[in-house]
């Protein structure tokens, strides 16, 4: 299981990585491994403003369908359209081409409320 050292993590296994003034949001390698083969992803549309903890989409694997939660408040600036044709991108490259949405945060400082990579790795290690 790998952890992206540059990202921060929510308890609900979404990661958030600041790039410029946008935050890249996806699910962790641990989360994709637990879900198993991902077969469908539905994301809210660009422009949607959401609070931290609100649902920004649904991810479905052969095992289960799970809600995706905003790791921080902001508006959706981009969604990863490649996932419609190839949802397995999330399994193969969760931190790379398998990203889900790009968020313009209301306050970039909100990142600090999320877990650092090391703390997240030890949290999932205990599960």
């Amino acid at each position, binding site marked *: 299981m790998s952890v992206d050292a540059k990202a921060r993590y929510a308890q609900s296994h979404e990661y958030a990585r600041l790039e410029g003034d946008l935050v890249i949001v996806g699910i962790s390698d641990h989360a994709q491994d637990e879900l198993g*083969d991902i077969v469908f992803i539905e994301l809210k549309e660009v422009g949607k403003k959401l609070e931290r903890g609100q649902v920004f989409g649904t991810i479905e694997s052969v*095992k*289960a369908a799970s809600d995706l939660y905003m790791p921080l408040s902001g508006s959706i600036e981009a969604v990863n359209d490649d996932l419609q044709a190839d*949802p397995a991108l999330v399994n193969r490259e969760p931190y790379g081409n398998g990203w889900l949405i790009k968020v313009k945060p209301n306050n970039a400082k909100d990142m600090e409320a999320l877990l650092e990579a090391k703390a997240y790795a030890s949290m999932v290690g205990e599960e």
Partner: protein
Amino acid sequence: MNLSPEPLVFELSRPGLVGCSLPGSDVPAAQMPKALVRSSLDLPELDELTVVRHFTRLSQKNYSIDTHFYPLGSCTMKYNPKANEAAASHPGWKNIHPLAGNSETQGALELLYKLQEYLAEIGGFAAVSLQPAAGAHGELAGVLMIRDCLKTRGQGHRTTMLIPDSAHGTNPASCTMAGFSTQTIPSGKDGNIDLKALEAALNDSVAGIMITNPNTLGLFERNITKIAAMVHQAGGLVYGDGANMNALTGVFQPGKSGIDVMHFNLHKTFSTPHGGGGPGAGMVAAVKELAAFLPGPIAWRRAGKYELAMPEKSIGRLKAFYGNFGVLVRAYCYVSMLGAEGLRRIAENSVLNANYLRAKLEKTYKLKYTRPCMHEFVAMGDVAPGIRTLDIAKRLIDYGFHPPTIYFPLIVPEALMIEPTETESKQTLDSFVEAMLAIAAEAKSNPELLHDAPGTTPVGRLDEVAAARSPVLCFRG
């Protein structure tokens, strides 16, 4: 079991074969408009005997509780006594016209009335409606009753329903249909609701909480009275999901523990086979304050006669006529035959059987929550490197057992949810244990056997990922 693959009727079709001979027409032929006439029709051509054999062979592939053990957690796949089938198919019940008047149907109304009384007593509630046709239908009825009750209290602004992370997926769906938004409450380390998280979630927008007890981990919610008191104190109401009532009958009355409204599944718990696609019945029960909101009509006894009428502030009708009457007849017979003592033995033996399996298997199939269970328990199937629960489940088919529920509840990784029910003998439970332990040994000595399983069925391991990602929904094309 008949294990050879069965061709489709389209593959059995031969041009010119017919299964019926129509008599000559005795009315003048009429011309079809040309635009509506087709020259060919893609229907199979078969003779009657081929059709009979085709469907008989298909029926022989059926897997059912009448042929095999079926430990499907959360579904209570127990044996349903055939006597209740005989009662439900009695012409006196099944031939009643649904629009027949009260005076012609006193017997049927008496049955409905008495069943309402029995179920109210079993649950510890004030009143019951037999209208809902399934468990989730009962949930919807219950949350609509909560909505209307809150409006009557002048609390219509309460729109958030709290749902533990160990709940059935139907709970949030029912809330959403009733116009509520939902908020998940995490479980603590003991598998019960985390009381601190609950306390933090309680505020003026909370309409109530939906609790399944025992929960989907098969664990009794030990703080149930405290949780109910906390939610009541905060101005909310408590819904009980009775899907797991099989663990409680005759032992524990949920209505006395602070639950305001609750459904039971009369299918699965009260003697209608479950999992056959219906029909079901998800009766809903309520304490005194909410009784007036029950869906209707329900049966009443007035001046020695039985009649149907709507409760005073009813949420309305949820189903045509009077619910699924045949299911209600089975439930009435079942409760009458067992009596209080027999109902208690259902709960006791279902809990005993589950704990017997848990104790025999827990050294090999690890538990996330190690407490004694109620009627079911959730183990984990990753017994060897590279082996997942799916492999265990598929291999069980080769041993002649229906796999347990897998990957649910979501809070246990590699979940394997086993519910033996009270109707299985010790011999059956022992042979299941033997199979599970043999599979765990194979997982280490011959993992490929598990990866390739099942090996004894008409079709082997299906590619679930390909089926989900690029489904082919047409026959050959």
